[in-house]
Each structure stands twice: as C-alpha cells, then as structure tokens.
C-alpha cells in the first residue's frame, strides 16, 4: 500500500508539472501582460522598464523557472484589476464555492442513491423506466438555462426565493459560511438545485448500473432464499458492492461540479471563485486566471488521488500493481 501511495504521489506531481508547463507557455504566447500594466499613453521607455521589472525580458525558460519558484512559495502575482495577491483573492472566495459544491453533492446523493437502487433492482417496472428517462432528461438539460428558469419562477414570478448573492454569513472555523443562517440557507437552495441536477442524473445512472450487475450474483439469490428482508437486501447486501464502481466516477464528478460552479455562480452572482474566474476572463486578468487554474488543477489531482486510495482500500479484489 505504501509503495502504491508513493507511486500515485509521484504521478500527481508529474501531472501538476505538465499542467504548469501548459498553462505557462499558452499564457506567454497570448497577449502582452506589460500592456495591461502600464497606462495607455506610456512611452516606450516606461514599457521597457515595466518589462524588466516583471522579468519578461529574460528567456522563456528562465521565466518558467521563476514562475514555478514563485508558485511554490504561493506567489501567483498581483491581479491587474484588484491590485491584490491573486492567490489571496481565490482563497477568500473558496469557502463560498466549496459550500455550494458540498450542498449540491449532498443533494444529489440523497436523491440519486434511493432512485438508482430502485431502478436497478426492478429494471422492468414502468416507474423504473420513467426514472431512467427522467435522468436522461437531466443529462440533456442546459444547466445555465435551468438556473435562469429557477430564478424566473421562484424569484421573479412568485418572489419566494432570493435571486442572487449569498445572504447572511457567519464565521465558522475561520471561514465565512452561509448555510447556518436562515437567510443564507434560503440563498443556497436554488443554486444548489441547479448545480446538482446533472450530477444527480449521472449518479443515479451509475448506481442503477451497479445494482443491475450485483443483483445477478449468487450471493443475492442466496440472501433472498435465506429470507432476508427486501430493504436490507437492497440497501445492505446489494448497495455496498454496487457502490464500488460508483465511487471512482463520482470522485471525478465532484471535480466537474467544481468546474460547473463557475456557471452557477455567474448566474446567481454567488461570490465564489468560479465567478471570479469568469470575471477575470472578461477583464483579461491573467494572474487570477493562472492562479485559479493551478489551484483547481491541484484540487482535481488530489481528488483523483483520494478516490484511488479509497477505491483500492474498500475493494480487496484490486491488485495494487
């Protein structure tokens, strides 16, 4: 196990290394950051001075090493717009995004697992077929549009839900969290519903596929003939094994939810790091874009790593080599 973990850690670092190369070189070939820094009427001498100050007159390879060195010290440069450390801007907004992602994941698990178990255990029932068609619709929905429709129905038409922002926040373990206040809870419902629809549909389909596979096996037939009650047969005997493949895909799914949070946050003006990314793209604020990409890449690689470790430790059949 230890050997396996070291191997995976090594791979993690390799992936991050490749990502840093891609991000750095792609960014360097597009647009001149110096022109973003100086005033429009700057003289050539001023431009040159700014270039030297930023180290952009050095060869690209040297620049890359400086870039990596700075990243390792947690320095991603200053945002052109906010004139603040880019990494600080992102860290400040991270709790809002993680909170939204957490509620969405929870929501999809609560709804998807029971429905998936049912549809997988009784695949020929009409209600199971309806559930599957519904999940197919869930995958087909443009989720930004769903968010807008939620806003229109609940915020504009019936005026029962707020349409934007985070509402009241409280300090919890040093982070600003909104679900613990009534107002904040009200604010998170619509964005969380929007964000969870797609992952809910995918999780449901995965659970169903896993269940269908497991229900064919002998130990289920044996448990049934032994007289195990229906509910405990489905949720204890079958679900445990059906969930093993689900975990791998769902780990990646959480990464997708973080990525899609950019859309949700834009629609609901949720002050998270996804909205910061879109705003930075629209203002060509490169340091913030780079910082976001590197941090999100780190989160994804870490998620994959955790999923792999969990997967191998819950399924004894997996060969670690």
């Amino acid at each position, binding site marked *: 196990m230890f050997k396996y973990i070291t191997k995976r850690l090594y791979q993690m670092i390799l992936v991050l290394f490749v990502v840093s190369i891609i991000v750095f070189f*792609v960014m360097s070939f597009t647009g001149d950051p110096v022109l973003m820094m100086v005033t429009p009427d700057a003289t050539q001498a001023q431009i040159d001075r700014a270039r030297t100050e930023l180290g952009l007159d050095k060869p690209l390879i040297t620049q890359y090493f400086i870039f990596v060195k700075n990243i390792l010290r947690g320095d991603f440069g200053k945002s052109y717009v906010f004139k603040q450390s880019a990494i600080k801007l992102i860290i400040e907004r991270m709790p809002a995004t993680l909170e939204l992602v957490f509620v969405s994941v929870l929501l999809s698990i609560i709804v998807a697992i029971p429905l998936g178990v049912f549809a997988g255990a009784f695949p020929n029932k009409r209600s199971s077929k309806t559930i599957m068609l519904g999940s197919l619709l869930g995958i087909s929905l*443009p989720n930004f549009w769903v968010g*807008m*429709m939620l806003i229109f129905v609940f915020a*504009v038409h019936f005026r029962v839900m707020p349409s934007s922002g985070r509402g009241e926040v409280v300090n919890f373990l040093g982070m600003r969290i909104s679900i613990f206040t009534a107002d904040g809870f009200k604010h998170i419902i619509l964005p969380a519903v929007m964000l969870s629809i797609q992952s809910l549909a995918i999780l449901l389909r995965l659970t169903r596929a896993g269940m269908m596979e497991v229900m064919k096996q002998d130990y289920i037939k044996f448990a049934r003939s032994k007289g195990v009650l229906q509910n405990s047969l489905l949720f204890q005997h079958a679900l445990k094994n059906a969930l093993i493949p689900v975990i791998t895909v769902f780990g990646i799914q959480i990464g997708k939810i973080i*990525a899609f949070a950019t859309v949700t946050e834009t629609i609901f003006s949720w002050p998270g790091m996804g909205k910061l990314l879109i705003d930075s*793209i629209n203002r060509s604020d490169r340091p913030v874009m780079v910082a976001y990409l590197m941090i999100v890449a780190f989160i994804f*690689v870490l998620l994959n790593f955790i999923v792999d470790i969990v997967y191998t430790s819950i399924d004894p059949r997996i060969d670690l080599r």
Partner: protein
Amino acid sequence: MAETNKIGKDIEIKKKNRLKEFLESEFFFNYKRNIPAIIGTIIIIIFLLMATIGPLLVTQNPYNLSEIQLMDAYKPPAWVDGGEWKFPLGTDSQGRDILSSVVYGSRISLFIGLTGMLLSSFIGTVLGLAAGYFGGKIDSFIMRIADIQLSFPATLIALFIMSIAGRGIDNLLIALTLVGWVIYARTVRGATLSEKKKEYVEAGKVIGLPSRKIITKHILPNVMTSMIVIATIQVGTFILTEATLSFLGVGVPVTRPSLGLLVKNGFDVLFSGLWWASTFPGLFIMLLVFGINMLGDFLRDELNPRLK
C-alpha cells in the same frame, strides 16, 4: 453492354437484400419497440430539417437589419395578451422574431456539434489506432496525454482554451476537438489491442498486407459500432458545451448567435419579465440534446455487446 447491365442489376439486388436484411434484423426489431429511440429520431430529423430548409420557412432573417423593426420589440408569444401570430414565440428587445432566431441558432448549434464530433472522431481514431497498433513509445505518449486530460473536466479545458483563443466558431471547433479526441483514442486503442491478437490480423500480416491496409480494412470496421455510440452522444455533449461557453461569453461571436448565446441575450432581460426570449431557445437546446441522448441511449444498449 449486356454484361454491365447484369452487374448493375446484381448490385441493385444486393442493395435491396441489404435493406431487407436490415428491416428483418434484431436491431431494427428492437428499435421499432423502443418508443424513446423513435421519438429521439423524430426530434433529430425535425432539427435537421429546421437547420437546412428552416430559414426558407420563417418570416424574417433576424440578422438582416432591414427586416427587423424596433417597433416590434418586446412582443410576447402569440397566445399571451398583446402577442401576434406574426411572431409566434414573441420578439426580443431588438424586435427580432424569436422563432426565426431559434431556427437560425439551431443551424449554428448543430453545425458546431456535428463538425466538432467529426473532427474529434477522426483525430481520436487515428491516434487510437496508432497507439494500439504500434504500441511502445507512441502508445505511452498518446495515452499519457489522454490520462492527464481526463483528470480535468472537458468544459473547464474548453473554457481555458476559449478564454485565450477568443470567441469564434473556428476556435470553438478547435477547443471541442482538443477535449473530444480522448474518448475515441481510448476506445479505439482498447479495441485495436484486442483485435491485434486475433488470427485474422496475424493472417493478414503473414500474406504480407501493409499495416495501413490491415488497420483500415480489418481493424477499423470492428471498432465502428462503439464509435457510432460515442459519436452520437458526443454531438449532444458538444452542443451543450458550446451553449455553456457561449453563455459565459467565450463561445460563438455575437454576429453568429447559437442557441446558447440566444439564452444569454434573453438572460439580460429576464428580470424585467421578458421570459420568452430565454425560455424558448433553452427549450430547443433541451429538446435537441434530449432527442440525441434518447437515440444514443438505445444505440448504446443495442450495439455495446458488453452490456447485453
């Protein structure tokens, strides 16, 4: 002369037999009884018709400024008070007919989805065949890239590419191809590896067929079925990805609005109660992708021998 006629007739009979064979096949039998698949097909056909001959049928070209009048702005759908049948789904803030915009928009969305799929499948297949057939360094290089790419969500990669390359249909196609090739490469590589070991490929090698011929004539047809399934579903995914990117402002240019950009334009006026400008384009995206997915789901169950 008589000889060529006979050959022509033979080919005709062969064609007829093929059609008959298809109509009597298990695949078609299952298709006939699968209502979602049939509905999906009908939706796809309607959208294809809309994209090809639709512009001839609608009342205006929403991008010809001489045809739109500001006077017509903010008209609700025809069945709502104040609506006119001239604008069945209402008009937007510029006086453009929503139905006409949707018809022109579906054209762009479908074009991007289909072309993106064709490009990805071509590049992915070539790379997958190369990786699987030749193995060694080529294989590990291609697959390493694929692995790294797969650990990040496709939408995020496409968003990153578009935010640097800038808006534009050509850039969108490049971005979609860069995220879309991986799944074909993986599938084709896997299939090639298992096909490669089979006797018919060995036999081909023994009689001295060149690798190119073994790959295109013997291995490729065997991976075709899984490719069809992936390709169908990918068109839907690409249409959604394009819509999302356009919604975020990094997709199609303002002059060529796809369905996604229409939704975005409608979002700006949603709070003032102009719901139809965003509701209908979104509804059409949903219908189109749902139709594609219903057919794709059927194809996957039918053509993927692993699930049977």
